[in-house]
């Protein structure tokens, strides 16, 4: 039973690691675009993907260390607390990243610094379930991507919409997973698919003549 659980965790970590690498590739590409165009929003977008990948890698390392290296169901309470901190940090970084997506991809004028700081402090200011905040922020990202696709009608914008929608869907599955391992894995697979869709967009843009 324990071996089966570890195998599932390893699969989960593999999905998350690939997603993290893709997030880093997109951050790199957005930085490249920023250097060429000097558009500040691209820098915000890049920071968003970078923060997301850092969150993912910290989650992967934490999960691997506590559940795989030290074994399942560690009876030491200090370790359980540390794992909770790792998970909370991961959620926090995820929300930060999604907020940066909201700010960088929103239409209209540039967001003023105080407004941005207020939004970034949202997870601290509001004492509710972090996953609910994540879903709400991601929903805004998806709606903005939908609006953008309706305006530009390009296949690249469609890939971005598809990618963000799959990531949003992965959070919906995650919140309904509770103790259901299968739903949790589906959630991670959806997240990976979302990042692969975004990677496909970057690949297709890179191959343009």
């Amino acid at each position, binding site marked *: 039973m324990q071996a089966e659980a570890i195998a599932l965790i390893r699969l989960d970590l593999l999905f998350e690691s690939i997603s993290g690498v893709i997030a880093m590739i997109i951050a790199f590409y957005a930085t490249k675009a920023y250097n060429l165009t*000097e558009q500040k929003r691209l820098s915000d977008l890049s920071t968003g993907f970078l923060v997301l990948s850092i969150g993912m890698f910290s989650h992967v390392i934490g999960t691997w260390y506590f559940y795989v290296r030290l074994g399942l169901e560690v009876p030491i309470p200090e370790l359980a607390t540390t794992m909770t901190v790792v998970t909370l940090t991961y959620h926090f970084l995820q929300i930060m990243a999604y907020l940066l997506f909201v700010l960088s991809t929103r239409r209209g004028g540039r967001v003023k610094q105080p407004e941005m700081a207020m939004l970034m402090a949202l997870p601290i200011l509001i004492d509710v379930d972090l996953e609910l905040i994540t879903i709400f922020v991601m929903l805004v990202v998806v709606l*903005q991507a939908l*609006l953008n696709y309706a305006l530009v009608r390009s296949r690249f914008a469609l890939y971005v919409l598809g990618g963000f929608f799959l990531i949003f869907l992965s959070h919906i599955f995650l919140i309904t997973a509770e103790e259901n391992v299968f739903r949790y894995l589906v959630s991670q697979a959806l997240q990976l698919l979302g990042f692969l869709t975004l990677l496909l967009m970057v690949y297709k*843009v890179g191959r*343009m003549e």
Partner: protein
Amino acid sequence: MSRKRAYRSKMRILADMMRAIQSEGEEGAGPTKILYAANLSHDRLTQYLDELVEKELVKEAGDGESNRVYHLTEKGRDFLREFVKMEKFSEAFGIDI
């Protein structure tokens, strides 16, 4: 639904000028054509053309004010190709450049 572009970055203006030059092919583009295609004032056009020549993205040919034409250099073509990719990438996320 039409998109209103309120502000064009300097990089975008330079890219628009280079696109205007590229569209004229081997013959090259004169200042008036570039001015209209990139929607610029005369002063801005002169300033940006000097910058493009200085950065070796564009080369000047022909003698005299009236015969002057501009061609894209290899470096200019590479820059424009890369810029278009970044433009598409940004547009996909709803970011105007």
